[in-house]
């Protein structure tokens, strides 16, 4: 799925240059579940953004399904995101004015799916995350856990190859966190998704097949003795 070779990412910050990533080499196979941990400011989210075609590396190559993302134009990257990559965010990032159903439908807009099909797929997506009865509710009328379920439905409705989650349980209580992680685990298993989760939470990371620890822009991988029920 992914092959990263000697990837670096530098940011100018005033007169200084911040080296967010320092030579990342990483291979993620189809259907892998990778958790990325590490202290704040050590490059976890930067790596996730590069994996998600939201940003470009400064040097090195990022191959996604055999395509060098660095060689693609902006609209091609947009197309990759629209078709193949799903995102989940810590703060859910639902459109506040749209209902749960419409939020899920929004992910199908770039694919120019016909209205009727879009509605059906969104309704089905919501049903899969257990929110069929909340379809008409606005995000403000949903709990944090429900909002994250809507976000998961939105990320998966287009049937992406990879799901990238940035602290998906960071804003949730323990019970809801476990509920969400169980849902993600089952979806990963059922759909054969490739899943990359950035998290501070060791209990969340333990569910992954392997964990990468980011420190000073460098990644160190280790295989997990996976705890699917944790």
């Amino acid at each position, binding site marked *: 799925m992914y092959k990263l070779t000697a990837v670096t990412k530098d940011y100018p910050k005033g007169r200084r240059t911040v080296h967010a990533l320092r030579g990342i080499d990483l291979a993620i196979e189809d259907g892998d579940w990778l958790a990325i941990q590490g202290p704040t400011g050590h490059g976890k*989210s930067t790596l996730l*953004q590069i994996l*998600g075609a*939201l*940003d470009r590396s400064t040097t090195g190559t990022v191959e996604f399904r055999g395509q060098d993302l660095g060689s693609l134009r902006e*609209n091609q990257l*947009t*197309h990759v*995101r*629209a*078709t193949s990559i799903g*995102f989940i*965010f*810590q*703060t859910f*990032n639902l*459109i*506040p*004015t*749209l209902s749960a159903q*419409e939020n899920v*439908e*929004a*992910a199908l*807009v*770039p*694919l120019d799916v016909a209205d009727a099909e*879009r509605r059906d797929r969104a309704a089905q997506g919501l049903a899969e995350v257990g929110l069929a009865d909340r379809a008409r509710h606005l995000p403000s009328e949903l709990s944090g856990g429900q909002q994250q379920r809507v976000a998961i439905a*939105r990320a998966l409705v287009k049937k992406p190859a990879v799901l990238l989650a*940035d602290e998906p349980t960071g804003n949730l209580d323990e019970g809801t966190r476990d509920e969400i992680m169980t849902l993600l685990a089952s979806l990963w298993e059922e759909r054969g998704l490739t899943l990359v989760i950035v998290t501070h939470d060791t209990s969340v990371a333990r569910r992954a097949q392997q964990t990468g620890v980011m420190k000073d822009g460098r990644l160190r991988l280790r295989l997990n003795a996976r705890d699917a029920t944790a």
Partner: protein
Amino acid sequence: MFVTYLVRELRRRMRQAIFVAAGLALGIGLVITVIAASTGVSNSQGAVLHSLYGVGTDVTVTQAPAAGSDRPPSFGFGGGATGQAGSAFSRNVLRAPGLGTLTSSSVTTISGLTDVSAASGSLSLTDLSLSGTIPSGSQPSGSQQGGFGGGASGSISSSSFTVTGIDPAGDALGPLSSATITSGHGITTAESTDNVAVVDSNYAASQNLKVGSTITVAGTTFTVVGIAQAAQSTNTSDVYIPLARAQSLAAMPNEVNTIYVSAASSADITTVSKEISASLPKATVTTSSDLASQVTGSLSSASSLANSLGKWLAVAVMAAAFFIASILTISAVSRRVREFGTLKAMGWRSRRIIRQIMGEALVIGIVGGIAGVALGYGGAALIQSLAPPLTASTGATTNGAAAGGPGHFGAGGGGGGLGRAAGASHTVSVHLNAPVTLGAVGLAVVLAILGGLIAGSFGGWRAVRLRPAAALARVE
């Protein structure tokens, strides 16, 4: 999805949307009101000018009198038998006071110009009558300048009235064009050599004339065939007779002193004016806009107010409305950075996001435009109902030929003002209408769309510059 998203977003920030729309509405309403007022003033000016100079006349052509050409009237009191003191006399002459003359062929020349649709000549004259007894001790001579001094008063009676020779074939232009024939008929082409006259209603009332009455012009009896009422208190002549008869009686064959010209279109007036000046270099060519500049009074003040203060006020309010709309749209986009970052992460193209922002701004602009048109109609109605009657005065320099010369006529207590036709100042009272034209409404629609597009463009520009990674990084 586009419409749903747009409507929901506008509903979410309804107060801001209403504020922006209200700003645009105010600006557009002001623009419409100012245009309506300006159109009203312009129409009023047009009405005044038409009543003074004739409907449909775009250009008038006159010629300044040659120096010394405007000699005082000669009544034939030469040193012959008729000049004896104590003897009775009676004289009736027709003169062209204070105006230079053009040849009738000039009318043909002007008619033949490319951008001229019609031209008509007229001859403005004054009929002077003197009768009485030649006073003793006075030896007036017809060859001398001037008239009778005050010492001659009491023994001589005088009267005068203005006579205009008009071309019956060209009466759609010229002095009678703005008048209404209230009785009888106008002079027809079949009557172009007959002794027939149309009399101004005021003069007819003062002289107790009606259709079928007779009047004497330069000693010749004319039958009144029509009574004409001028549109407003204007620069009318007392009597209108066929041009050919006027030329004959005044001994001015093939001469006219004013040519009324209608241009093929209003856009051609300047060209026509230049063409006439080229063809008749000595003539004074006056366009309707030249005449408009001679209009003074509260109408002129209203015109200045509408055209200067009103225009700039409207421009300033529009600019402020556009600025506020743009700032608020940018601000709204800035507050939605995370939202747009998320959409970009989901694969929404920048142009789809711009379309969404532009759509929202356009809807606000259109709502503002509709409200602005309503405001504009209200403003125009307010002006129409509250504006006091406006007065307009025109200067004394009709057709550029000033009264003057040596033709002062001071026959005792009598009063024959020779310069009346050319030299009178007229004041007309008009009610200001403020019509909202389709053009003004069209302009409002354009401004509303423009306002929306400008605001949307700024917002869109802000959104395009947004890198999804940076937008999402803000969330952390």
